[in-house]
């Protein structure tokens, strides 16, 4: 498995675990309605996720050859573009929902969490496309 595929898997798995936990807390009512409650809980979850991802990257880098860690080549860049472009559309829809539709009908905490969900979904889709492109191939 390519080094960049491994790091994409690591990021994807950590992200899914972290945000399933966060949104479970939100849905079960354990996160307060104040902005500070949301930022505090999200901050803790995001920080733990970031630390795990950084440690994972260090471990993966130490266990792979220098050749594998070389600068991204055209295939890596094409796959990254594919993921980024798909994630952009999810983020676009999320932005329209959060910024144009919800302010007229929903309370602030729901808007904030929907915005966070849109970011998480966009990033998840981006990484899913990256790992599937490495697995199954990608012909641009």
């Amino acid at each position, binding site marked *: 498995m*390519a080094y960049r595929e491994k790091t994409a898997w690591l990021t994807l798995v950590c992200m899914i675990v972290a945000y399933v936990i966060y949104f479970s807390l939100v849905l079960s009512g354990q996160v307060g309605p104040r902005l500070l409650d949301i930022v505090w809980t999200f901050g803790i979850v995001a920080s733990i996720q970031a630390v795990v991802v950084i440690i994972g990257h260090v471990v993966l880098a130490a266990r792979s050859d220098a*050749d*594998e860690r*070389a600068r991204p080549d*055209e295939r*890596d860049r094409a796959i990254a573009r594919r993921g980024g472009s798909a994630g952009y559309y999810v983020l676009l829809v999320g932005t329209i929902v959060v910024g144009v539709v919800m302010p007229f009908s929903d309370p602030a905490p729901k808007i904030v969490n929907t915005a966070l969900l849109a970011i998480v979904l966009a990033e998840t889709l981006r990484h899913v496309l990256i790992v599937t492109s490495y697995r199954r191939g*990608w*012909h641009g």
Partner: protein
Amino acid sequence: MAKPLPGRVVNQIRLLRFMASEMTQAELGERIGMTRQTVAAIEAGKYSPTLEAAFRIAQVFGKPLDEVFQWEG
């Protein structure tokens, strides 16, 4: 949006590496500025390289492009 036509690019890179004194994927990758994994993906038909990369690969083996890559429709 235009529908992609059926067919795929196939290549003779594995054979050409064998004929070039068993050149490794890593060696070829180094000469064309790609990682070993990308060379492996091209050989396995999992990635179609850009035209520039295809020319660089053909140049390494001293072959015309159509002896390295073919269109299988």
